[in-house]
């Protein structure tokens, strides 16, 4: 299996979906079953390979495994360098897992306008971008995969998204929500990543100052960054700021989050799931993989800012949730809060905090993905997302309602379910942040964050109460509804099981991450 370990395994994970997209393109549009089967096959193959990689992964080692490093664009010193370590492995598996579930769910749930061929092609291209970002170890390669997700998501939101009109200041006629959300998503992300690219280039040029060859290689740059000689002073300050802009838009951190509620609400169900479950993680992963190890001193300097913004996001996200009438929009805002916990964990720059961030990312991916699936199915049945009109869902649709209750409990961080670990450990870490941190600030952050967990419980229970419990409203009494079908359960049950598994036995994630995180913290921040 030498070929498998020398990059081919990861390449299969990343590029199988792309090949699938090309194959789907070649099939005539009318043959829908064939198209769906092909897409399912390639998504499943990519997932299976990622499982094989996980099984073969050497958990005792901190470095990159399954790597490859070959020539790609010699003109700009960029190489095709890929590999996984304990930090990226859970995210790679998460992305292939969620993609597979999305294809299963899509089997008989098609948003208007019905066009499975185009939709699945976009979804598979998206899968390549997501998995690729998590395995890329070259800044240029990272940038390409990071941006590769933009086009498919733009079209997914813009074509299959919410058709309700919305009023915009300055426009006489109302605009369809999907159009506004799609371009807003695109422009925000592009704005961030344009500056991220400038940051990458600045790192590249400065990396040659020590007499060594210039490089875009993340591994080499991390090593040079840890020495603390090259990237210093105002240079490092502005480079970190540029990277920060790129990643923070994607996370999204307050106050750059405004694209998120629009995009998540307007996107078709599968689009929302992929956005929430994977795309947001590209940003926080970028912090852990690139910004922290390459610019450790600046990470310390910026940590209080990140912590403050994270706490604001937690409180703001929760309060915004309490003001929502639209169920999907509520879940979208809850992502702002949950990603706030992830960023709070990262800002502590400790082993506990970064482990918390990764487990928080995985948990948020599983749980919020599930919540968006459920919101989509509820809208599919009731044709509304207004919580005021819903109610008694538990009686009408017992299976769907039960899973919704479970997901809400997991999302509010109930111990024993996946959501607990990320929040709890992030708060724990901010009690004891990196050496030299402003203790008062981080401990205040911990207290405010703890208040945030209460608010989180508040809005999720409130949502459950309005949607699931109570009497069935007049307008739904006479109607007959179909409870969750096989395809829906096929997508949801694995998520429920994963939530339980990570909740009860978090070592599934920590077992992979801990060694790599320890190595990262030891090298960048001296233990």
């Amino acid at each position, binding site marked *: 299996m030498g070929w498998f370990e020398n990059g081919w395994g990861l390449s299969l994970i990343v590029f199988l979906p792309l090949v699938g997209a090309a194959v789907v393109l070649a099939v005539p549009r009318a043959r829908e079953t064939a198209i769906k089967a092909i897409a399912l096959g390639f998504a499943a193959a990519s997932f299976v390979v990622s499982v094989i990689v996980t099984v073969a992964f050497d958990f005792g080692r901190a470095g990159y495994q399954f790597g490859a490093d070959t020539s790609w664009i010699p003109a*700009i010193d960029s190489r095709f360098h890929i590999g996984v370590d304990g930090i990226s492995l859970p995210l790679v598996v998460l992305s292939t897992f969620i993609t597979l579930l999305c294809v299963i769910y899509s089997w008989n749930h098609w948003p208007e306008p019905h066009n499975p061929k185009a939709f699945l092609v976009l979804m598979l291209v998206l899968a390549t971008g997501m998995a690729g970002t998590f395995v890329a170890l070259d800044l240029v390669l990272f940038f390409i995969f990071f941006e590769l997700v933009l086009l498919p998501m733009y*079209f997914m939101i813009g074509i299959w998204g919410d058709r309700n009109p919305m009023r915009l200041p300055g426009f006489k006629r109302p605009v369809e929500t999907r159009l506004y959300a799609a371009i807003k998503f695109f422009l925000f992300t592009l704005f961030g990543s344009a500056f991220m690219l400038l940051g990458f280039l600045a790192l590249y040029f400065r990396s040659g100052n020590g007499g060594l060859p210039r490089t875009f290689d993340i591994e080499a740059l991390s090593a040079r960054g840890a020495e603390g000689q090259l990237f210093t002073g105002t240079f490092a300050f*502005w480079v970190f700021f540029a990277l920060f802009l790129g990643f923070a838009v994607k996370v999204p951190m307050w106050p750059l989050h405004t694209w998120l509620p629009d995009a998540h609400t307007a996107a078709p169900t599968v689009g929302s799931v992929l956005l929430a479950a994977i795309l947001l993680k590209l940003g926080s992963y970028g912090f852990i993989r690139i910004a922290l190890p390459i610019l450790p001193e600046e990470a310390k300097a910026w940590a209080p800012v990140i912590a403050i913004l994270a706490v604001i996001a937690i409180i703001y996200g929760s309060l915004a949730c309490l003001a929502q009438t639209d169920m999907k929009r509520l879940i979208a805002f809850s992502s702002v809060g949950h990603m706030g916990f992830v960023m709070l964990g990262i800002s502590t720059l400790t082993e506990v905090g970064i482990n918390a961030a990764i487990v928080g990312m995985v948990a948020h991916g599983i749980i919020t993905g599930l919540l968006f699936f459920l919101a989509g199915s509820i809208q599919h049945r009731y044709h509304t997302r207004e919580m005021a009109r819903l109610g008694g869902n538990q009686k009408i649709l017992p299976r769907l309602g039960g899973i919704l209750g479970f997901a809400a409990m997991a999302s509010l961080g109930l111990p024993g379910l996946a959501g607990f670990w990320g929040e709890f450990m992030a708060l724990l870490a901010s009690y004891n942040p990196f050496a030299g941190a402003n203790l008062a600030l981080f401990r205040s952050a911990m207290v405010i964050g703890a208040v945030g967990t209460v608010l989180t419980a508040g809005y999720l229970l409130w949502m459950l109460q309005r949607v699931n419990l109570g009497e069935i409203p007049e307008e739904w009494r006479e109607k007959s509804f179909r409870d969750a079908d096989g395809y829906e359960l096929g997508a949801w049950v694995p998520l429920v099981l994963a939530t339980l598994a990570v909740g009860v036995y978090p070592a599934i994630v920590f077992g992979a991450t801990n060694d790599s995180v320890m190595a990262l913290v030891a090298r960048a921040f001296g233990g």
Partner: protein
Amino acid sequence: MFDYHALLPEFILGATLLVVLGVDLLVAPRRRWLAGAAGIVGLLAAGVPLLTLAGVGGKREMFAGSYVVDDFALVVKGLFLVAGAIVLLASVSYLRRDRYYEGEYYFLILASIAGAVVMASARDLITMFIGLELVSAPAFLLAGWRKGDLRSNEASLKFFLIGVLSSAVLLFGMSLVYGTTGESTFTRIAGATAAVSGESAFVLGVLFTLVGFGFKIAAVPFHFWAPDTYQGAPLPVAAYLSVGSKGAGVVGLLTICYSAFAGARDVWGPALWVLAALTMTVGNLTALRQSNVVRLLGYSSVAHAGFILVPFAMAAAFEGAALEDAFFGSLTYLLVYAFMNLGAFAAVIAIAERTGSREIDDWAGLARYSPALATLLGVFFFSLAGIPPLAGWFAKFVMFKAVLGDPGNAWGVALAVIAAVNAVIALFFYARVLKSAFMDPAPEPVPEGVSLSRPLAAALVITLAVTLAAGVYPQLLAFFGEAARGLALP
């Protein structure tokens, strides 16, 4: 004196010009497309000696250094030949449907390409000027080809007046340079610069030369003619103007700045900094307001001229490898831009035929009734916007890389930030066209259009293949940029 091997591409092009005229005389009117076919064959044939010359390698000088065939010249000549062939492919069906003169059209396009090919080798003020005029003069006529159409007449007249004015300005600048240095060959001008670098007449000469080229590449504030001319000219001619004619201008600017004015970098560097910043910003902001796709592409090509100038701007501050990188950045940008912009125009030609309109709003719902054309449009427009994994990202990347060559230089960083903001603005207007095509409802009934002609399809396939392949494996085009970068350091 005459290096026949080195001059073979020019000779073949000359022969092709005569063959095209002959074919036009001899064949029946309904088979006039044969003249176009002959032109394409001639262009490809002229490419063969480029390969053999590249195989032999080395630098060949003729006429006391005024005409040089080196790697840079070979790469640029190859670009013009390929771009010319794609333009001819896109022209065939367009001309047949509109029933305009065919043979003469092909003749003029080929003559203009011959001029561009000469410019690639010109290392002398006079040769450069003659090459540039050979590029422009046929283009004046071509812009007015739809002689029954008022807009086409306006396009031609405007282009002609501005073109003549810019030639005069250029010539005036060149004469000042000649007057102060006493030389006309680039290498010798460079040698004589040190003695006259303080003289205001010389500085004025350099600046006038820049202004002259500024008109040719439609840099702001010398860009007014471009959108009007593109809109009125036949679409394949607009495509040619935005790539062939603009490319010739860029090539002229590159050679003259980096070789003749190598000692005056402190003059043209800052001037081009301002020009680049203005051109990007004004081009993009104006493009936001357009409702006509061709005008939009006109302003977009203005903006791209700005992006091409960006790496130039820091030349005064750079030495050695960074200077070479700047040269590489501009040239590689031009290579990528040529393919994606020709593709965009080819797609616009096809869609304009299909929908019968060039208004963005009339393209609504194109993806419903013609998904293939809509996808092509998406690929080329997003490539122009620089979104990975389409080739345009690499052009933007090398541009940023070149201008940040010294990350401590505040001017370079400032220009990079301006360029980054512009890249985001640009996305908005490209996406607007695609929003109309993909996301708006299709009209009822769907417009009846003609089917895609085979030559146009071939042009689309070629440009699509390059745009996709160079996006995933940019070395494909970067290789040529690398080969030619040697010109930066004579």
